[in-house]
């Protein structure tokens, strides 16, 4: 169905944030490893794709993107957080709740997971824009993240990338307004991933492209443009979440849209990020857009969503804290295909006897301490002002010692400095060595913490670091994973 243009929502896009994992692997490296088996892969092996580190998943990437989108805003004003993904770590345990708490949002937030199709990203965004329940002065945040795994030597292994994007919505400070939309449901199974399966099963790629996108898109785009009374030439930017620029341009062309207006689908440096891809490309387009530009966003997956936006004057003043371009630029090359496979979970390396430790979680303990562990809430003594983690009942300042005078004090968004550190090859770590140390926060408080993403920064006493939400460890016996905060050297 298409939009009723007479009652367009007063809710619009107010901001965005993106996260692309830093680790990039050359597609030639992947294809080269398979040359003995499937030489044809080399043909399409261009550029680099992004891969989540061992301690990243759709939850942690969603947190990174959402924190970027919410940077500087008051968490108390966020009234809802929806998370779209086809790779949620938990099937029954709301993933969005964890994302919301890690982002510092208050419990009075409406959280929801949306999944089941690559169209979950655009579906969430459209639903949010049409959600009349967003009060004035409040923000809704829509995050999409995907970490799709691919079978070695499959075309997916080359095409996929991991990434996340977050879009904030509100009634004030709108940088892009929805002009119209069109949505169609159609059970075209070009690929699927059945419950319990690790990887996608895929029908012929040409069919998926020609029947799934090229044939379907024109009627939907035409219906939308007719609805809003706009000619194709009025569209400044076209977003087609295809795996390659060629495919994206082809879709634009059959819709009567100029191929040169197609947003680069980020095949090089990122790859196709599944449900997150339309939102990631939207964030990328908004980064460059001037006021008054019309942006057409398409999302595919058992049908199609088409959303038409127009940027406002406010976009001139908007400064994103975590733009896509920065995420793209901060990648590093790691052409280690064995590590790639280990992080994908495809191969199990002998990790030694130290990896045998039982990592069973006491869920009652985890629940009692979720504010400290998920929200990185320390305590600040209301008598002497000492910030302390963990937030115990008795003040650690021995000149104070006040009991039950702690106020919650979030450390996650504060800059830290390294007090001491080491690089440990003895302790078990999925990506050795285990690097950890003591950090101290500007404004007080300290934390014994693991370092992550230290590969491109020299660890040193006094060096600045910032905190990120990551997977702490996996309890493979019980299918559970734990999350905590890690320090990234600046």
């Amino acid at each position, binding site marked *: 169905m298409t939009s009723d243009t007479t009652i367009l929502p007063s809710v619009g896009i107010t901001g965005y944030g993106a996260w692309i994992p830093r680790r990039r692997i050359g597609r030639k490296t992947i294809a080269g490893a398979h040359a003995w088996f499937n030489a044809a892969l080399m043909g399409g092996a261009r550029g680099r794709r992004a891969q989540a580190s061992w301690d990243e998943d759709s939850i942690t990437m969603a947190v990174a993107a959402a924190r970027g989108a919410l940077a500087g805003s008051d968490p108390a004003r966020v009234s809802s957080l929806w998370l779209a993904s086809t790779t949620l770590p938990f099937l029954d345990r709301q993933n969005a709740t964890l994302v919301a708490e890690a982002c510092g949002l208050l419990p009075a937030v409406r959280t929801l997971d949306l999944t089941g199709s690559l169209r979950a990203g655009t579906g969430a965004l459209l639903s949010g824009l049409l959600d009349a329940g967003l009060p004035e002065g409040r923000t809704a945040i829509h995050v999409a993240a995907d970490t799709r795994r691919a079978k070695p030597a499959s075309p997916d292994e080359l095409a996929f990338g991991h990434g996340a994007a977050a879009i904030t919505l509100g009634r004030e400070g709108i940088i892009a307004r929805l002009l119209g939309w069109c949505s169609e449901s159609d059970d075209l199974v070009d690929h699927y991933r059945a419950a319990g399966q690790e990887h996608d099963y895929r029908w012929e790629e040409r069919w998926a492209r020609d029947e799934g996108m090229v044939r379907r898109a024109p009627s939907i785009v035409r219906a939308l443009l007719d609805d809003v009374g706009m000619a194709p030439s009025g569209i400044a930017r076209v977003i087609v979440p295809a795996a390659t620029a060629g495919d994206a341009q082809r879709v634009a062309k059959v819709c009567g849209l100029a191929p040169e207006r197609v947003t680069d689908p980020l095949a090089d440096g990122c790859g196709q990020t599944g449900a997150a891809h339309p939102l990631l490309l939207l964030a990328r387009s908004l980064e460059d857009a001037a006021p008054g530009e019309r942006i057409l966003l398409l999302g595919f997956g058992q049908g199609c969503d088409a959303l038409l936006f127009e940027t406002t004057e406010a976009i001139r003043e908007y400064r994103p804290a975590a733009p896509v371009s920065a995420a793209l630029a901060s990648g590093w090359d790691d052409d280690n295909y064995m590590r790639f496979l280990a992080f994908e979970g495809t191969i199990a390396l002998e990790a*030694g*006897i*130290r990896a*045998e*430790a*039982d*990592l069973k*979680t*006491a869920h009652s*303990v*985890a629940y009692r*301490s979720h504010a*400290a*562990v998920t929200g990185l809430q320390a305590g600040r003594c209301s008598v002497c002002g*000492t910030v*302390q*983690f*963990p937030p*115990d009942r008795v003040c*650690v*300042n*021995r000149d104070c010692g006040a009991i039950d005078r702690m106020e919650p004090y979030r450390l996650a968004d504060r800059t830290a400095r390294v*007090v*001491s*550190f*080491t*690089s*440990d*090859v*003895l*302790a*078990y*770590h999925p990506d050795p*060595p*285990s690097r*950890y*140390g*003591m950090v*101290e926060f500007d404004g*007080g*408080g*300290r934390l*014994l*913490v*693991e370092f992550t993403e230290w590969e491109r920064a020299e660890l*040193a*006493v*006094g060096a600045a670091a910032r905190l990120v939400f990551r997977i*702490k*460890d996996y309890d493979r016996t019980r299918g559970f994973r*734990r999350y*905590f*905060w890690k320090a990234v050297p600046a």
Partner: protein
Amino acid sequence: MASGIKDKVAIIGMGCSRFGERWGDSAEDLMVEAFTEALADAGIATADIGAAWLGTSYEEIGVGKSAIPLAAALRLPNLPVTRVENLCASGSEAVRGAAYAVAAGACDIALAMGVEKLKDTGYGGLPVRTRGSFNDLWMPSMSAPGLFAQLASAYAAKHGTDPRDLKRAMAHVSVKSHRNGALNEKAHLRRAITEEQVLNAPTVAEPLGVFDCCGVSDGAACAIVTTPEIAARLGKSPIVTIKAMQIAASDGSEMSHTRWDGTSVANTRIAAARAFDEASVRDPAREIGAIEVHDCFSITELVTMEDLGFSKEGRAVQDILDGRYDHDGAVPCQIDGGLKCFGHPIGASGIRMLYELYLQINGRAGKRQLPDLRLGLTHNLGGAPMSNVASVNIIGRLE
């Protein structure tokens, strides 16, 4: 004001098993080995013992919980036995229990046993175990060397130490202990090593290499204590008495308060000050003739020299390189090889340190004998720099 324990308790018998990879022996076998020596040394019978303490840390891979394994192994006739656990300071904790019982008059003769059977884990190094259900939710995957290695990074930054000088001083610590340990028939590691070997060894946790880390050993050590009066009646000469027995434990400051700068072990300083006070030691470097410190890692021994006050703040590197703590230096340290070479069966180590000083004071240390030792100090540390239990004991001749 408490009067303290000085000269209220005498050590009349000590025993120590051979430390090392004792594949063929159980924890119980090791306890019997140490006990047999101590009992013969004391010249008493099992029936003369009034109470006993057992110090062991990794009970899950060793004897299991409670003090019953001690009572059963030694066939202690339904004595009051207590198991204590304070990480690597468990042995010192057992001696404290026994000494306080004697000092309180609760019994005439008490026994302290420390034991650890670490080579039944299936791997080198210490086994991984839970840090508690809450800490496991947030603490990184860490090892003991990694926790102590952080001292080096903070120390070098604070004192502007060239990392190469620090590494050389750390190497000197290990070379010295290997030289000493080579003379000790009960030691786990008995080969002398060179500075080059230490510096070129594979890294464990930066900047610690393999030779910066102590041995992980099986072993047991035992002490029998009584009153100085009973010791005299038993004909002991000299009479070795406890001069000070202090333990300080973290209150969470190092972990959660910015007061601690990560370059020292705060509790060592506190326990040492209390011990010198209790023993009426005014000038430690001059009065104390030998020290056995908790050299789990070379960097630990290095900062301990400052924490105990034998080196001035920031001077340990130079003092160590100058040989101040060598066997012929001003303050001989680890004359028995220390944790580094004698070995480190966790629960036994605190008692093993006392064993060496006891032998030295009695003039029974063989090739390692120091001339005329009257006062010695042990430093036994449990935990990690940011959360620990430090024990400082001083023993000497009853003058």
